[in-house]
């Protein structure tokens, strides 16, 4: 699965990158984020597009796995 590193990026870049990635990989993507707002925004976006979003803690933030529900 394709991994997007959105750590350290300002709003709304993590969601823009996620949107672009799922266009190319509709089956799902992994997104790395390190800000709570980015985690919430990517999760919200994923769910709005019909993905299940699994959240795992990482050393510096979170790994969000979007898979087609």
């Amino acid at each position, binding site marked *: 699965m394709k991994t*997007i*590193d959105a*750590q*350290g*990026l*300002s*709003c*709304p*870049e993590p*969601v*823009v*990158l996620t*949107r672009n*990635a799922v266009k190319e990989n509709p089956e799902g993507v992994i997104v790395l984020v390190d*800000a*709570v*707002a980015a985690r*919430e925004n990517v999760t*919200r*976006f994923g*769910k*709005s597009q019909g993905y299940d979003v699994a959240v795992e803690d990482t050393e*510096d933030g979170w790994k969000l796995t979007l898979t087609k529900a």
Partner: protein
Amino acid sequence: MNLSKNEKAMTIIAGVIMGVIGASLVLFGNPKNMGFCIACFLRDTAGGVGLHRAEVVQYIRPEIIGLIFGSLFAALATKEFSPRGGSAPMTRFVLGFFAMIGALMFLGCPFRMILRIAGGDLNAIVAFVGFVCGIATGVFFLNRGYSLNRTRKVSKSEGSILPVIALVFLVLLVAAPAFIFFSEKGPGSMHAPLAISLIAGIIVGALAQRTRFCMVGGIRDMILFRENRLLLGFVAVLVSALVMNLIFSATTGTSYFNLGFENQPIAHSDGLWNFLGLYLTGFACVLLGGCPVRQLILSGEGNTDSAVTILGLFVGAAFAHNFGLAASGDGPTVNGMIAVVIGIVVVAVIALTNLKTAKE
């Protein structure tokens, strides 16, 4: 789905409370339609510490200090205090500078734009259209890969500097030494009692931190992703401030709602420059990742890029009054018009030069 519904309800409730507080601060003494205005209040604060000498707009506004503290407290309580920085600080400074030049052309930040609409000031609707166009322009560049690169972790002491400066400003305000300026007339002399302003700022700061409130984000996310959560908060502020203004008008005998273009409090009716002023602010704020309120909130969370943005806004306000760029009730100045045009060009150059073509 439930999570999303809860988030939306939270944002709307926070917006309603912010609207009530925004309208009420006027009742307690703030200038009309100016319960909150980040641009005006940073400008007043710059005047309070003597960075400009426009005598009518000098007062260290406790609301600004409160917003930073409110965000800091909420972030500490939820373990979200996260010192970060290093993402193009000089670029952010310049964007902040010109976001302020645009706001002082219109005479208000996006928050005051909402409060001005809620007070019946139709000039703010013209500015709102400019604001939306500015955001759309920023979104155009976001969709083509605009990015100011990544932040990284910084030390807690680095992340604490702006909150500490806010504390120093509070001490200066309370102690009122001779070198601090206090307007004796004009908008700077009109303010709610210190404690009320400070507490109002803290409440709004905490609410904005929890809900990630952003005046730019609402419209930006709607254009980009058809995501309406933040926009609902924006509308909630507008509706609740409008209702409060009507209630206050009906119960106090003073008018807090005056529908029209002319004779609006601390406003001018030059449509083109109201439009272009907030066009510039909207464009710059999208490139910054959030409106002036959001920058204050992020700086309270330890984000030093946002702290640098605040410094840009602050210096922009001082320049605006030292060089006669800020508009007044009489209308815009020629210097201000030139500055807004330069600002739009500079922001466009920043947008163009920060397009990342490489695949992530």
